[in-house]
């Protein structure tokens, strides 16, 4: 037997790591620190930043527009995650019980591959008040044109619906992949015992899918909080500020009004929320791993 000497690959290792460490330091570490610093300054891109203590945070907590953006974001997240998760669970179950077709799965993945900007444009056209296909359909059954993007009550459900359309297939495929891990004999056994599809879903699929479902839910939540592209293309935060989500609020503060310090404070706030969600995700990731191993 050959015993290998304790190796020390120090020199090689740092060379292997060099590009990633440079990328990390320059574009993650440094900007993260700088972001925290801006949040306690009055920086506006033209001045030299001066320390103002917690002023930005105090202003933020008193800013109605900020609270509106939090409220609007929460509304979006509820609409989007609720519909998307339920639909995805349904579609995944259908696929799991019906077919293993790769063709079908690829088709479901299609909207996920398309840029949100394209999806926004596409639905702006489909939902156009005068010429859009959907309003033509509504007209055909005697319903009046709906201003999907221009009506204050409709705007947010419309945006949420568009993103549900775009991400449900992807989410369904993740859940489906989780379902494939469930041993087939459980279903065969239940079927011999005379259990129907609904009982198998409640008794086998749902409980065994739970770790995967929880993980997918958190990942979708994190993504949902960061909705921007669709809104930037379709409603631009309007009508009034019915769709001015937190990401758009930060974007406006930073790049329209150049209140960089203020925007950074709002970003810290959002980062805290997402940080907690990510920490939960990491926990679940470990949990689901040990479950399936």
């Amino acid at each position: 037997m050959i015993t290998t000497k304790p190796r020390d690959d120090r020199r090689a290792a740092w060379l292997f790591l060099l590009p990633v460490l440079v990328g990390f330091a320059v574009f993650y570490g440094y900007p993260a620190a700088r972001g925290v610093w801006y949040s306690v300054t009055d920086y506006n891109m033209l001045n030299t930043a001066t320390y103002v203590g917690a002023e930005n945070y105090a202003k933020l907590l008193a800013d109605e527009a900020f609270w509106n953006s939090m409220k609007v974001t929460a509304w979006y997240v509820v609409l989007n995650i609720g519909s998307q998760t339920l639909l995805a669970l349904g579609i995944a179950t259908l696929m799991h019980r019906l077919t293993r077709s790769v063709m079908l799965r690829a088709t479901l993945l299609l909207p996920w591959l398309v840029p949100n900007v394209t999806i926004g444009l596409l639905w702006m056209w489909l939902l156009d008040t005068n010429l859009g296909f959907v309003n033509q359909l509504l007209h055909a059954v005697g319903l009046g044109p709906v201003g999907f993007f221009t009506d204050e009550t409709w705007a947010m459900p419309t945006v949420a619906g568009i993103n549900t359309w775009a991400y449900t297939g992807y989410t369904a495929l993740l859940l489906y992949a989780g379902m494939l891990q469930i041993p087939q004999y459980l279903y065969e056994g239940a079927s011999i015992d005379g259990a129907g599809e609904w009982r198998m879903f409640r008794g086998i699929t749902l409980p065994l899918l739970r770790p995967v479902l929880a993980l997918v839910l958190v990942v979708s939540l994190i993504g949902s909080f960061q909705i921007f592209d669709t809104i930037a293309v379709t409603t631009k935060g309007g009508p009034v500020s019915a769709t001015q989500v937190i990401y758009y609020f930060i974007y406006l503060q930073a790049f329209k009004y150049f209140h960089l310090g203020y925007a950074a404070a709002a970003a810290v706030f959002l980062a805290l929320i997402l940080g907690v969600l990510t920490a939960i995700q990491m926990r679940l990731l470990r949990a689901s791993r040990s479950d399936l191993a």
Partner: protein
Amino acid sequence: MTRRTFNPGRALAWVAMTVVIVVTVFPFWWMIRTALTPAADIYTDNASLLPEHPTMINFLRVLGLTSEAEARAAGGSGAHLNFAGYLWNSIVYCGLIAGVQTLFCAMAGYAFARLRFPGRDLVFAIVIAALMVPPIFTLLPNFILVKDLGWMNTMAGMVAPTILMTPFAVFFLRQFFLSLPRDVEEAAILDGNGPWGIFWRIALPMSRGPLITIGLTTTVWAWKDYLWPLLVGRDEENRLVTVALGVFLQQSPNTQPDWTGLMAASTLSVLPVLLLLVFVGKRLVQSLNFTGSK
């Protein structure tokens, strides 16, 4: 197992599945159908599945292949459009990010999985902690950094934040390298290979699957990028397809958007990923099994 002749539940399930497929695909059909419609027909011909007078003019004009007068006659606003160029920019952008990032992250993932050096686990933990920092948080400072470097409106500025690494790719590839059997590598050490030789000649060729997976996923995300390239790459010369679509919409009159042109441009932005789906769809679909849940 016996096959039941007719099961109403199953039939109903297939009906539901068909509805799902139609709802998924129809908007794309409508996009292409509109792109093939002459702009003048948009008020009269917008309810049938096929256009009455199909035309390629909308594609030609957004690709910048017609004269300005022709484009205007076909419903354009007169603003110059060059989607051939924007598509090329997007392809370069995605190719650079996916290729370089995958290689660098593989190197780092390998070092974290296999090489022995002091501080390894600590450095890894710090890099992975970056997963918790949301993009918007680093976006503002990165914008200022790129501005200070004088990289505004350059490809360098656009790819800079993501070309070297993303924490997820490092994490994902390290996990994979940890699962590779060690014997082959040990044999190679005995043959006198250093870490570099083992990485290139053994570890990389053995990890083609995961490398393609992470490369494809990165390509798709890069193709969809909007906010960052909008901030640092607005100039015509480096404009990506997504940014160009946004600009095109803005230039188009609010009261009567140039829908046929917009849908032609949208179709072009979908075409490359559609090709990706046709050629590597199976791989993409299967990759969801392990980037997603496991």
